[in-house]
């Protein structure tokens, strides 16, 4: 039996009379790259907030890295990483200071942190830019740095929110190589995006429509079943039938 990084059963969240997440059941295997898709307002953000221990479910359950999201949310925060397109790094701190700050927040011992900082700088070829303010470095570097920082405490699972929007196609591929490499080392990666070509890079995807998971599987299987040639076509077909 393979270990599950996420095991959600009938997970539900209501706000008043509105059901934002409606009995979703899915699992994500350890080391998998999983795409979590849905239109604006489909319930992705609410689901992610429950899976990261920031919001209690109304009903149903979910375990993340073995911990219950309702009762063990503090343990979950220790074993997950999070990277968002909008906010991940401090613009007015240097590259090195950003890495050290996150190391401090996650209580990484000083000697170990020194080694990790140097590893990250080497891996990203940022040795000569460590004193640069993050504000002044190119977007592609920022995104790679934000990803490395999200992985600094060796989380079991990392959440990526639209990680590559706006970067050039070569930088974007370098970013996906970092994702594959992390997955290869056993880190589970959950990517939320509404850019469908990004979905094709994932091992499996789910598509949420109006609070429910309407499709779950490998991009290839889902396209074959629906008789469409791209995840974009599949997504539009599902969303329009809602």
């Amino acid at each position, binding site marked *: 039996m393979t270990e599950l990084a996420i095991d959600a059963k009938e997970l539900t969240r209501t706000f008043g009379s509105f059901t934002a997440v409606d009995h979703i059941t899915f699992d994500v295997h350890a080391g998998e790259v999983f795409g979590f898709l849905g239109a604006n307002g489909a319930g992705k953000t609410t689901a992610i907030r429950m899976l990261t221990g920031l919001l209690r479910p109304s009903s149903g359950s979910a375990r993340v890295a073995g911990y219950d999201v309702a009762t063990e949310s503090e343990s979950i925060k220790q074993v997950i990483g999070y990277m968002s397109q909008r906010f991940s790094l401090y613009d007015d701190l240097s590259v090195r200071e950003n890495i050290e700050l996150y190391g401090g927040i996650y209580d990484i011992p000083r000697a170990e942190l020194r080694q990790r900082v140097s590893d990250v700088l080497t891996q990203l070829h940022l040795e000569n830019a460590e004193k640069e303010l993050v504000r002044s470095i190119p977007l592609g570097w920022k995104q790679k740095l934000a990803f490395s920082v999200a992985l600094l405490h060796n989380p079991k699972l990392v959440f990526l929110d639209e990680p590559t929007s706006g970067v050039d196609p070569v930088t974007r591929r370098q970013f996906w190589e970092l994702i594959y490499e992390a997955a290869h080392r056993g880190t589970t990666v959950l990517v939320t995006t509404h850019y469908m*070509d990004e979905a094709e890079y994932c091992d499996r995807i789910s598509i949420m429509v109006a609070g429910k998971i309407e499709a779950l599987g490998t991009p290839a299987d889902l396209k074959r079943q629906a008789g469409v040639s791209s995840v974009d076509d599949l997504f539009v077909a599902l969303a329009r039938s809602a």
Partner: protein
Amino acid sequence: MSATPSAVSVKDLTKRFGNALALDAVSFDVAPGELFGFIGPDGAGKTTLFRILVTLMVADGGSAIVLDDDVVRDLWSLRRRLGYMPGRFSLYPDLSVEENLGFFASVFGTTIQREYDRIAPIYSQLEPFKTRRADALSGGMKQKLALCCALVHKPEILFLDEPTTGVDAVSRREFWDLLSRIKGPELTIVVSTPYMDEADRCDRVALIQRGKILAIDTPHALTAAFDRPLFSIAAADRYHTLQAARGFPRVQAVYPFGATLHLTDARREVPAAQTVAELSSYLREHGVPDAHVEQTPPTIEDLFISRMGAPDDRVVA
């Protein structure tokens, strides 16, 4: 005034911000009635270019003529004739849909009623929500309202700066469908996007990177200009396959592409079947028993990658 052969004619347009060269001698033409797209990542110079073309910024060098009007000398004439939708949502969040549109109409001395026919294809979708505040609209609806406001004074040309960025797939598709419906001999549309897969919605596109145009042509001609066979590799373990393929002695470039990897052979003259056979056996010998190699048609993104990597990035229009 004589009939203009081009809706937009730009020559050697250059703009600096301090040491950064935002636009580096950019030249191109847009034909009347065209739906013309600028495709490139953040920082390519798209927004700077649009600001110069809509008379909100002055270039450091070169010239730009829009609808026969010089963007500097004839700005007051030109401003009445163009519509502009900036990249950042720029309507009034605390005014309703109807109030926003009415305001933009009044600035140009007209009314919603008088312009109804022109904006009907879009406004009819917004009308059920006309009393809703703009900040309470979904991302897709905001973009439609902004498009409506840019159209309400009957411009002859529209400049839309990244209208589909941050909008979900369904709304993006609806937005492009709308553009196809409203473009025509009376309305030229110039649009920018960071998303390569939107190129196919344009009549012609310019690929732009670091202030330079890498290529300009129809989407079909651009992919046809890819100068060698392209191969896709499918295998269960993409990470390992990528490492293995990098060692292929004949490899020119290999990179992840969706569910597969894309690879080009450094030997341009070799038949595709030979590369398929050699690469398949190489991968089998190097720990990828399930590799499936086949020739695949290049996409705009493949072309962008190949041009970006080229040492000489001259305009090839």
